[in-house]
């Protein structure tokens, strides 16, 4: 079982927990996730999936938004607490060696799986531009992480308290026009990812999205997490969470039920 070494609030209802997880840290790739058993004696028996936000040596960072019992328990976890953690799981973002300039578009906690991606891209000499969307200035998270490695970071807030006023998709539209981009990576509420995917398709460049589904096993056996794609039903936990935007059958999107009902990503309008 894995030890919590730090756990701090970084925005209203949003926390950053750091785990000492040498094996997970050593093998994690950007866009993968961990499946966490927050409590052993809880009425809630299932694990909770969380993206690996960043890796720091033997430690991994997870950004979480408190939306229910499991994330509430996670927020209460004090350093020293040990949790059973599976991972890294999932396919992670695909990084094409040809890529010179990448745009990362995050809505709300969609920043979670993009932190490590920005760092890895920058380390490979890829120019990184970031569009961050949040409800308000105080809800913008991970900005420092991106500013440390990105060429350009644009923020959009619903109330205009920071950066452009309105949805991050507006900023995305503008950046697609301004910048010479080779690829777009996006994560956030499914509805927002869908709009971004449309904009990027119109711009004629590849786009990768990260889907979210209710998950039981997290390792590909229970078929709880399937998403409809051009290649048929795919398991988000092992075939995803990252998919080519063109392959996703948005219209199906049972994820919207999740997003609308529960998703922290769904939490903030973008």
């Amino acid at each position: 079982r894995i030890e919590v070494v730090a756990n701090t609030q970084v925005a209203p209802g949003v926390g950053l927990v750091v785990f000492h997880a040498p094996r997970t840290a050593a093998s994690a790739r950007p866009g993968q996730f961990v499946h966490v058993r927050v409590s052993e004696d809880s009425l809630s028996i299932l694990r909770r999936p969380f993206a690996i936000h960043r890796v720091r040596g033997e430690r991994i960072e997870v950004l979480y938004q408190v939306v229910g019992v499991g994330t509430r328990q996670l927020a209460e976890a004090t350093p020293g607490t040990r949790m059973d953690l599976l991972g890294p799981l999932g396919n992670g973002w695909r990084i094409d060696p040809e890529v010179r300039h990448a745009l990362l578009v995050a809505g709300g906690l969609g920043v979670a799986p993009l932190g490590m991606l920005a760092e890895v891209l920058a380390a490979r000499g890829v120019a990184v531009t970031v569009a961050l969307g949040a409800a308000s200035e105080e809800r913008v998270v991970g900005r420092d992480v991106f500013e440390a490695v990105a060429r350009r970071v644009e923020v959009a807030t619903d109330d205009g308290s920071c950066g452009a006023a309105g949805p991050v998709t507006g900023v995305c539209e503008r950046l697609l026009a301004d910048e010479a981009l080779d690829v777009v990576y996006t994560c956030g509420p499914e509805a927002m990812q869908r709009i971004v995917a449309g904009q990027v398709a119109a711009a004629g460049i590849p786009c990768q999205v990260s889907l979210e589904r209710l998950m039981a096993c997290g390792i590909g056996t229970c078929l709880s997490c399937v998403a409809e794609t051009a290649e048929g039903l795919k398991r988000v936990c092992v075939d995803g969470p990252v998919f080519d935007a063109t392959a996703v059958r948005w219209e199906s999107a049972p994820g919207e039920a999740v997003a609308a009902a529960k998703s922290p990503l769904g939490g903030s309008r973008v």
Partner: protein
Amino acid sequence: MSGHVDMRVTLAGMTLRSPVMTASGTFASGREYADFIDLERLGALVTKGVSRNPWAGNSGPRIAETAAGMLNAIGLQNPGVDAFCAEDLAWLAGVDVPVIVNISGHTVDEYVAVIERLEEEPGVAAYEVNISCPNVDAGGMAFGTACAPAEAVTRACREATSRPLIVKLSPNVTEVRDIARAVEAAGADALSLINTLLGMAIDTRTFRPRLGRVVGGLSGPAIKPVALRMVWQVAGAVAIPVIGMGGIRDAEDAAEFMLAGATAVAVGTANFVDPTVTMRITDGLAEFCRSRGMMRVAELTGAMRPHCA
């Protein structure tokens, strides 16, 4: 570590290394779990449900968490028996564990068709017939909820194979012993129970059902008392062996089912919580016996004592 306790149990003519099996649909065909456990230490590996043709399953959300349990409405999604043989059975050929294939169908003929196809395959140790599937000929009501259809499926499957035939009972019935006796009379070699309890959950934020299909199957620790009661009732009503399941998450749970009369046990939902749970239970059962001076795990079967005798 099993030490000196003999963990073998015999079931429908098979001698299993241990009484601990996997529950259908919670273990796929084991491949994903090979990274976590030694599949060859399982008493048997029960595959996900397989149908003649591919089934797409239900639209999502497919699961919902509930107190001490979960609801699922996967809808028996599977690629059909041919793909199952080509992929799953082919992979399993390399694993030394008895493979029990769980069979799904909408009609008696569909069940039989799956078995006929699998009869060509050497790597099948036994069949587990899931009679909780909707019976389209009978308007979708499950085969397993009345004696006649349960008997019909069992008899037809029995005629299609001489391999061990296990029939998996639904708990959503008034008198599970009646179904059990009917299935036994129709030629089943063993019974497994329980399948999931039909349940439902509503999202109070959206006012919508939590499951795309509205209702689904309840599994996990929450259902254990009902499962244990049914296993005890059925073990006392039939002569064939019973495989007990429903909410098992540790060796004590497994022991309870054996004390109630189960010859073997199956672990389902707990695999999602801890992929190594089947090994913990196997080792724990051996220790459970050793600490009580029992030399054979099989001694547990039906060993429940009357109250304050």
